[in-house]
């Protein structure tokens, strides 16, 4: 019987251990990180199997929920945790490519970023969620500026400013809720949310929604994303796109469904989601730099997930979670591939990458990732997008879905342009073969995307419990 707390305690244990190991061998720390993330992924997998029967409550310190902190792991939380750790494991292999100096500190920051994101998904306590949000953000601030060049620093600076304003709003939200309900456990809050004064309730919801919106890259709050992703080292931008972003959106889902039970307000969330998609895709079309393009495209995909959550029907939320999984895998793959392409072309601009992906080891996973992001069938991205669209239709959001489809045509346009340039025949001479640390994670992620896409039964059996999640359960 796996205790979810191990998913947090063990990485912490290894993080604290690594400075000591770091004194002896720097390489040792890198492989320790890979082992830690692998262990975490397997634990999360076993936890997922358990959480399928009934939600797992892990009481910390032996005190019943509202007194102590409790980890609330439903099937949905478990699968997101599993995917986060799986992707983290793949990215940690790519981490071997990072040469820039204080590598021990880099590994610690990366491991704690993973721990923070997992924590955000597992926790059932509001303030604990805030602490893990902070763990993730601070790790991200440190990693965003890791390259110590101007782009890195500026990206990190923007992230810090927006991130800390966001966390202030989260704290304000918690203060508002605590002032009325005097408790911090989510289920306890959910049970007694009705007793709150309606205006204070709206204020609390908006502050929390805005606070987590920063991490979930919602429209007006995602302005830091392109600069932070662009400045960060390649594996980190891959990690940004899949780990904290997914945890942020899951926290958002917690806010919308577990704690507050608004029905008439959800259409506004859909509108915000649509705005995120719209601006994300359109600005991505104008981007010349590869990583900025992928950053904006990841904003667009997050917007789609927020839209799915906002629509609120079981099908749409199921689609939103499916898209979370697909996007985490797909975007991590694309960023790793982008890292290799930038390294091969020695420039961030897309035009200079003519024909860089012609090597099948990099070309095929890149295609699988791009097609999955675009929502093409035998890949994971298809079901997510289709369910969200159909959920949107079942709620009668015709215009919004039409606009969303227009935005995704723009998305296909710039991905096709990228694929055109990268697969162009021309300079065969400069095409180099990726080494193991690059193509191993690519192949792992590509295989998972295909397996999930071709046979979605396991994922869908897990996502059937969306009903209880929407009703405010685990």
């Amino acid at each position, binding site marked *: 019987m796996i205790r979810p707390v191990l998913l947090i305690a063990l990485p912490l244990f290894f993080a604290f251990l690594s400075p000591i190991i770091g004194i002896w061998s720097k390489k040792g720390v890198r492989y320790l990180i890979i082992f830690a993330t692998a262990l975490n992924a397997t634990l999360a997998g076993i936890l997922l199997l358990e959480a399928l029967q009934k939600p797992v409550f892990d009481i910390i310190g032996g*005190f019943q929920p509202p007194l102590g902190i*409790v980890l609330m792991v439903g099937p949905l939380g478990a699968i997101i945790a599993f995917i986060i750790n799986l992707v983290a494991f793949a990215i940690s292999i790519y981490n071997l490519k990072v040469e820039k100096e204080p590598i021990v500190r880099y590994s610690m920051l990366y491991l704690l970023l993973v721990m923070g994101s997992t924590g955000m998904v597992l926790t059932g306590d509001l303030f*604990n969620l805030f602490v893990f949000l*902070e763990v993730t953000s*601070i790790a991200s601030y440190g990693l965003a500026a*890791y390259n110590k060049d101007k782009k890195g620093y500026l990206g990190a600076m923007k992230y810090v400013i927006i991130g800390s304003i966001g966390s202030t709003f989260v704290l304000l939200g918690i203060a508002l809720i605590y*002032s009325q309900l*005097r408790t911090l456990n989510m289920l*306890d809050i959910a049970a007694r949310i009705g007793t709150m004064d309606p205006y204070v309730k709206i204020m609390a919801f908006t502050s929390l929604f805005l606070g987590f919106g920063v991490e979930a890259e919602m429209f007006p709050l995602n302005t830091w994303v392109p600069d932070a992703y662009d400045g960060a080292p390649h594996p980190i931008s891959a990690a940004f796109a899949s780990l904290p972003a997914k945890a942020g959106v899951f926290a958002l889902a917690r806010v919308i469904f577990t704690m507050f039970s608004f029905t008439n307000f959800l259409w506004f969330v859909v509108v915000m989601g649509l705005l995120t998609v719209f601006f994300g895709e359109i600005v991505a079309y104008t981007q010349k730099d590869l990583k900025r393009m992928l950053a904006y495209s990841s904003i667009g995909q997050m917007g789609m997930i927020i839209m799915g959550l906002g629509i609120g029907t079981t099908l749409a939320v199921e689609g939103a979670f499916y898209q979370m999984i697909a996007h985490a895998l797909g975007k991590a793959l694309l960023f790793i591939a982008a890292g290799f392409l930038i390294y091969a072309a020695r420039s961030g601009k897309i035009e200079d990458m003519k024909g860089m992906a012609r090597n099948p080891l990099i070309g095929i996973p890149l295609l699988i990732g791009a097609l999955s992001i675009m929502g093409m069938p035998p890949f994971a991205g298809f079901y997510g997008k289709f369910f969200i669209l159909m959920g949107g239709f079942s709620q009668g959001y015709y215009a919004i879905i039409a606009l969303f489809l227009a935005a995704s045509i723009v998305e296909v346009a710039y991905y096709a342009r990228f694929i055109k340039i990268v697969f162009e025949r021309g300079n065969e001479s400069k095409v180099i073969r990726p080494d193991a640390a690059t193509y191993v994670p690519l192949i792992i992620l590509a295989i998972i995307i295909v397996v999930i896409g071709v046979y979605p039964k396991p994922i869908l059996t897990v996502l059937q419990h969306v009903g209880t999640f929407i009703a405010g359960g685990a």
Partner: protein
Amino acid sequence: MKKALAIVLAILIFIVFALAFVKIPFGEKMSTYPHYYNPITNQTSNMSLPQHYLTYGKNDTGATNMVTAIVVDYRGFDTLGEVTVLFLASTGVGSLMYVENKVKKKVRRSNAVVETGSKLLFGFIILFGAYIFIHGHLTPGGGFPGGAVIASAFLLLYLAYPKFHAKHEKLSVSESIAGLTFVIVGLIGLIIAGYFLYNFLPFGLPTYLFSAGVIPLIYVAIGVKVGSELTAIVDSMMGVRE
């Protein structure tokens, strides 16, 4: 134009939150607090959460300082998270300040009064800091203020002796050992009682030094950790002086 926008925004946010907080009573008695509800066992209790802590806190955790009881025992997981945050800060600052080519900076010597004064005071400040976090569960203050005091001791040395440098390896070793003790104590709790961070040591008599089970142990670890981390941050921020 941006100034005007900023003012308008600030005022609007102030008004909006003021409207919300006007509805919240200030300084009311705890009896008016709503009663908490336990989602797992699904029953609402007869008292509110703070009242529960204040009434049963003593025999649940054995600590007299309720804040410490909550910080370390009831919501120990938060503190674990929060310690990681500090650990992250020091690693983050360390990695950002990390510079291969050590640029030497010329620094003036401070005068004799500061030097001798700091040499004398250093021991006492460390002692005082240790006192704070050892008695964390009895008197106000705890691991974090204690750690900060220790860090201030080292800061004093930096001010006094321009060439002074705390060894980075030593600091990070002490930091990680302290962190490890915290996690291992948690894991032992998990192994013994099935709950992570369970208070498995005997509570002993209230207001005695060796009471409240695991809390002093954890607080000592936190104290050492905070102390070494803050000094590490100060040290890397100082950069290198010849």
